[in-house]
């Protein structure tokens, strides 16, 4: 299995948001402006990679050898929650502007299922540590890509007269659906 294939599949063919339905909440919430979506994307890439590494280590060093695989949900979420809170504190101190921009969504990274999802998927797929890192980074990039595209679309839709009933989440979901359709074109370009 080659790393390039992992990257391609994680970013395009099997995009975490558009075909795996993970991380939808921040996707709907933060994709209003291009700038914030990039910021959020960066935060996700960072946290995702960090947590993927740590959870992989914990699983393969602590849980698996002792036959405690069933503890992985609890252990993983504990680690992720701790990590996110650490990142949050550090960011608050060192880069208040970015912190302001991401606002309440940083704590929400904890409950961003993409983070836990990637940690679990890594284990399910049996990746080694290198693959885990690559997969986590690529997934984060895929998340950012999907979010930035949506932010571009939503910035444009802001200037549009549309029915109040669909404005916001509804039209975002439909757009995501059509984007998801378009991303289907990448299916099968690289086979894992």
């Amino acid at each position: 299995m080659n790393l390039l294939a992992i990257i391609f599949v994680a970013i395009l063919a099997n995009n975490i948001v558009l075909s795996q339905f993970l991380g939808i909440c921040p996707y709907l919430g933060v994709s209003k402006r291009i700038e914030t979506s990039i910021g959020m994307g960066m935060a996700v890439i960072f946290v995702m990679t960090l947590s993927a590494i740590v959870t992989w280590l914990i699983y393969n060093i602590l849980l698996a050898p002792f036959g405690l695989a069933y503890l992985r949900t609890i252990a993983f979420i504990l680690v992720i929650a701790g990590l996110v809170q650490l990142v949050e504190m550090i960011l608050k101190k060192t880069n208040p502007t970015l912190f302001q921009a991401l606002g309440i969504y940083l704590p929400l990274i904890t409950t961003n299922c993409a983070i836990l999802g990637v940690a679990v998927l890594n284990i399910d797929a049996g990746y080694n540590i290198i693959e885990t890192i690559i997969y986590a980074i690529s997934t984060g990039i895929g998340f950012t890509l999907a979010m930035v595209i949506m932010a571009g679309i939503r910035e444009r839709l802001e200037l549009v007269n549309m029915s109040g009933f669909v404005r916001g989440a509804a039209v975002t979901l439909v757009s995501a659906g059509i984007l998801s359709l378009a991303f289907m074109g990448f299916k099968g370009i690289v086979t894992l």
Partner: protein
Amino acid sequence: MELVMSFVIIGGLGLIFGGLLAYAARRFAVEEDPRVETITDLLPGANCGACGFAGCSSFAEKVVAGQAPVDSCVPGGKKVSDNICEVLGLESVASEDRKIAQVFCMGSKDIAPDKFEYQGVRDCKAAMMYSGGFKACTYGCLGLGTCVEVCPFDALSMGENGLPKVDTDKCTGCGVCAKACPRNVIRIISARNVKYVPCNSKDRGKVVRESCEVGCIACKACVKACPNEAITVENNLAVIDSAKCDSCGKCIEVCKRQIIKDLGKVLAVK
């Protein structure tokens, strides 16, 4: 053995991360007043800007810092002000006075004619850029609905007659419409201000007669009729002082143009 390991691992992880967090909390501590968030939650959240700040959260910050009066949230009224006082541990200061927006013009489409035909963006400010507005009366409402667009509480609607209508139930008196109106036709008045003269024209009577059927012509009949000296004529326009007015209604009887309105009645009808 398995049970022990479960305890050890989960407990160990908890300890490690708990310790890390405790360290980080001290190392990267940022001073933040929790009351800001509490107050933000108390505010209506319309971000209307009536308080003079960029939005509800920035008002909350200022109010906690003591840089804004606790009663500056107009839409929230007394209730919000009292709540803020409670959070900050202050005495309640807000008065019971309620403020609402009213339209100071009755020159509807058929009554106040246009002097030329305007084509272009349907927005009052835009129309003002072309020869100062298309209405013959240079003070009257243009009726293109800029105020309706900006109202954060959905309290304004454009009537059939080309004049905006205020829904007194929804209006909070935030004043966004008054700021948006390029002709200052909409003003925020005290809901206690029971009588008012809905005209904005500062033209002399003769000019008003030519351009509008319902404009105040500054005849001063009301001034003379008022037993409380509550009415004065400023800039060719009758103004009623709510503090002096006792709502006797004599001005309404004598007004030649039948334009003095009783807000008490307006509210009652609604």
